[in-house]
């Protein structure tokens, strides 16, 4: 058993080159290992340098630019939102102020109007009172005057009647005194 095993090992060892290259795995054939290693290192080094020096910074730059742009845009949007909110508040405040002003003006004008009406009413009332007083005075004057006139007329009438009836001229002063006396007696009836 051991002999056979040794024989097989020896066979594989001697036939190894052929085995690996022809029927086995070409990967285990060391003929081009150095070449593969050399070209791998060369190609990968070039690839690494061009990626690290040129392409990755470019991509990173672009990604950063985009990120910054998005951040800036978001900041701007927030700023504008705040601005619009403050503007809205301002607008509401203005509206409130205006409403208050309207109410104030309304009350004020009402007050002034009331005042005006009151003063005008008062002056008119005063004037009316004055007029009434004046009229009363005039009336009383007129009454007095009319009384005198009535006395005079009655004197005249009395003297005329006496003259006509008796044909005599009576003393004027006596007639006057009589009329006065009578009229004083009867004045209370009319005044």
């Amino acid at each position, binding site marked *: 058993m051991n002999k056979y095993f040794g024989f097989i090992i020896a066979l594989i060892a001697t036939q190894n080159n052929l085995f690996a*290259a*022809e*029927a*086995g*795995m*070409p*990967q*285990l*054939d060391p*003929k*081009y*290992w*150095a*070449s*593969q*290693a*050399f*070209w*791998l*290192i060369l*190609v*990968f080094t*070039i*690839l*690494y340098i*061009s*990626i*690290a020096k*040129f*392409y*990755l910074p*470019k*991509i*990173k*730059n*672009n*990604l950063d*630019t*985009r990120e910054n*742009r998005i951040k800036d845009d978001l900041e701007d949007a927030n700023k504008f939102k705040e601005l619009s909110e403050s503007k809205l508040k301002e607008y509401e405040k203005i509206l409130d102020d205006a409403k208050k002003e309207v109410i104030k003006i309304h009350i004020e004008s009402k007050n002034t109007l009331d005042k005006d009406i009151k003063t005008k009413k008062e002056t008119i009332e005063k004037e009316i009172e004055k007029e009434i007083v004046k009229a009363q005075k005039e009336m009383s004057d007129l009454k007095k005057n009319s009384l005198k006139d009535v006395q005079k007329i009655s004197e005249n009438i009395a003297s005329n009647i006496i003259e006509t009836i008796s044909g005599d001229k009576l003393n004027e002063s006596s007639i006057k005194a009589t009329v006065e006396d009578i009229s004083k007696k009867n004045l209370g009836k009319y005044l």
Partner: protein
Amino acid sequence: MASNPMQQFSVHKIGPEIKIAGIDLSFTNASLFMVISASIILLFLFLGTKEKKIVPNKIQLIAEMFYTFVAKMISDTAGSKAKPYFPFIFSLFMFVLFCNMVGMLPYSFTVTSHIIVTLIMALFIFIAVTLIGFAKHGFKYLSIFVPSGVPAVLLPLITVIEIISYLSRPVSLSVRLFANMMAGHTMLKVFGGFVISLGLLGGWLPLGFSIALTGLEILVAFLQAYVFAILTCIYLNDALNLHH
């Protein structure tokens, strides 16, 4: 030997033989597809960054999505300290992804299906991460092998396991990618061979499998690139932020 499913992985030189100091550094089909993948990445990034629009067009959007995808992956796994390594992780992810994707095209060559390629990348990451760890923390970085909160009895065992797991990182990282890519492509080839050998009558079943596997392989191509990048981030995280 067109029916040999491993034929697709064979490397042959294109053009003249280049020998420097006795080492064969000839331009091969593997080198060609490395150059093609890198050129596609550079062209894509060139188109993606040509116009700097606030509202991006499609290709610019895709380039920016790649950027934010990798940036998020790094900040989630390794934190803000890993920012200087972002270009490297990004290049690594893009390179692995595009190599895997270009490998999905018929008649193309999958660069990442070769252990030497993935091993070099993994070894570079391993050595770089170790150097970063020692540069940042000095000999305190060795405390990564001594997890906190472990009973003293278990500590020697755990430390040995931690050292082994740390040292196996480049192997697991490289073999994971290489094996996934190789297995997927081999399987596709095998099913492709079945389509031919079973002919018009029986070939439809493996053809359907082939189509389904192609979809799966595209997923694997993306997933392995993602896993490769995120594991790099996790290793970087261990080196930058000592959690233990």
